[in-house]
């Protein structure tokens, strides 16, 4: 469980930092009056949607950290762990996911400058490469299964399918949000709404890329 504890420690540090700015040592019974009289304590200037995504990433992060914890514990709990040969295809998929993340980052830059053609092209590129990544993952599954590595054969195989599936499902959910951002970009006008949507998508994509690099590294090393 050390992985999840480490992850929670990071979250606790962030929460502690935030709480430390909330004047939790104020003596509210002495502080009568309008808000302006006392510094701090209002809502943050960030849009609610962004905070919502941050919260979601914390939750998704702890979910993945828990899978990794279970992986690390199960490895040593019995003598039956047989590391599996990761298909070479995974390297290619990783490259595609990096491309996808870069495209969304460029979409974000374009949205900030108000260049709508760039936004549209990059959103589509990002979405397209994410779909290619998912297709590649499924292909990797089929290669594995064809060479006899199925979930029931070994815990290492079971975790491989489980972890890639969880990551893939998160990306699939992200594609829904991305489709909505594309719909917003369709009229060809740069609105604050659109900028926010693109920003959130890019954030989420970078998160999933980071997670994938971590998971892939773990699969390779163990």
């Amino acid at each position: 469980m050390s992985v999840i504890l480490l992850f929670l420690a990071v979250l606790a540090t962030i929460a502690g930092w935030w709480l430390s700015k909330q004047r939790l040592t104020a003596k509210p019974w002495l502080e009568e009056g309008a808000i302006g009289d006392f510094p701090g304590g209002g809502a943050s200037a960030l849009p609610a949607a962004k905070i919502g995504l941050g919260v979601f990433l914390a939750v998704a992060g702890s979910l993945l950290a828990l899978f990794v914890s279970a992986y690390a514990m199960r490895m040593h709990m019995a003598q039956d762990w047989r590391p599996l040969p990761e298909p070479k295809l995974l390297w290619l998929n990783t490259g595609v996911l990096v491309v996808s993340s870069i495209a969304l980052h460029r979409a974000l830059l374009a949205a900030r400058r108000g260049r709508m053609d760039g936004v549209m092209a990059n959103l589509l590129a990002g979405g397209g490469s994410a779909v290619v990544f998912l297709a590649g993952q499924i292909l990797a599954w089929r290669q594995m299964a064809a060479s006899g590595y199925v979930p029931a054969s070994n815990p290492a195989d079971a975790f491989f399918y489980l972890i890639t599936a969880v990551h893939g499902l998160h990306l699939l959910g992200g594609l829904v949000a991305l489709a909505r951002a594309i719909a917003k970009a369709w009229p060809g006008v740069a609105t604050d709404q659109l900028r926010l949507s693109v920003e959130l998508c890019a954030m989420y994509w970078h998160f999933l890329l980071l997670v994938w690099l971590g998971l892939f590294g773990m699969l390779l090393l163990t």
Partner: protein
Amino acid sequence: MVTVLQARTRGMTLMRMPLTVWGIFTATVMALLAFPALFVGAVMMLLDRLLGTSFFMPSLVEMGQHLQHSGGSPILFQHLFWFFGHPEVYIVALPAFGIVSDLISTHARRNIFGYRMMVWAIVAIGALSFVVWAHHMYVSGMNPYFGFFFATTTLIIAIPTAIKVYNWLLTLWHGDIHLTVPMLFALAFIVTFLNGGLTGLFLGNVVVDVPLSDTMFVVAHFHMVMGVAPIMVIFGGIYHWYPKITGRMLNEALGRFHFWVTFLGAYAVFFPMHYLGLLGMPRRYPEIGETSFVPDSAATLNAFISVAALAVGFAQMVFLFNLIWSLSRGRQAGGNPWNATTLEWQTPETPPGHGNWGKELPVVYRWAYDYSVPGAERDFVPQNQPPARRATWEAAP
């Protein structure tokens, strides 16, 4: 959670929030971080069943047949489950802590004692509850040093918890206690929670827990602390807020009947279980048969428990009747029958209309606990009342 972070009305700083909101807020954060563990455990168990994986399933012989599983570890499931499970008990308890603080303060006409400590304790309990899960696994054969570590963290949680209990008592001290039905339930909560918390301290120590684990003592512990105590708060909360939701009061006589039968009945049900547990009676067994250590009289005690449980069940029928009957026949409540300070009691309409406040959102000028302020014209000052009378009460001796 994002509502508390981003949608507070003007003037509602975190330290002006009622403790109810603090409790719910913290519990929400905990729920978001704890439930993934349950989810992970559930998914992996499902795969064990459906796809024949061996995450948790060791090699087993069932009906003379070797199952295809091998090497899985039930301990891994226990870790995941209790990593969720222990935070969950505080996810239940923290909102109850918050609500009971507000009930006590309102019905004792006194500001909550040690508000800041109450907030800090809620946050501290929330954080600590993520590092105590293995106290549910003392008998799983884990490394004894882990047992020592988890016993220590478990007992440390008792400190902020005890602080809260002291602060409730100090709020009541010299208070103008109105023994309304919500207050009765709030007081019952304190007693019951204290009872369950103390047995928790027993179980938190490895050497005491090992013989008591998986006995009725554990059942008594968690039903006191997680069953009866929060339910007392839920009932207290319903009696307290029903007038705001419906515009009518619940019937007082029926409420008192409901309270006494439920409170005493719950003790009749769960108190004897401590004794059964000390006898060594195991939990989860439908029938224990002959043993050398459980006397026949234990069966008599179990029968008594069943009768008490039926009585408690009956009292809930009375409560349901009260809920429905008072909807049309209850005494008109007015907007603020308990003379409470918090915002929900200050809405222009009762029951509140859509959006609660009409066109103009309230502005908050003070914390949630200005009861019996010296020099104030009434014994409570609503949170949204501007500080016009400051000069007069500052001048008062």
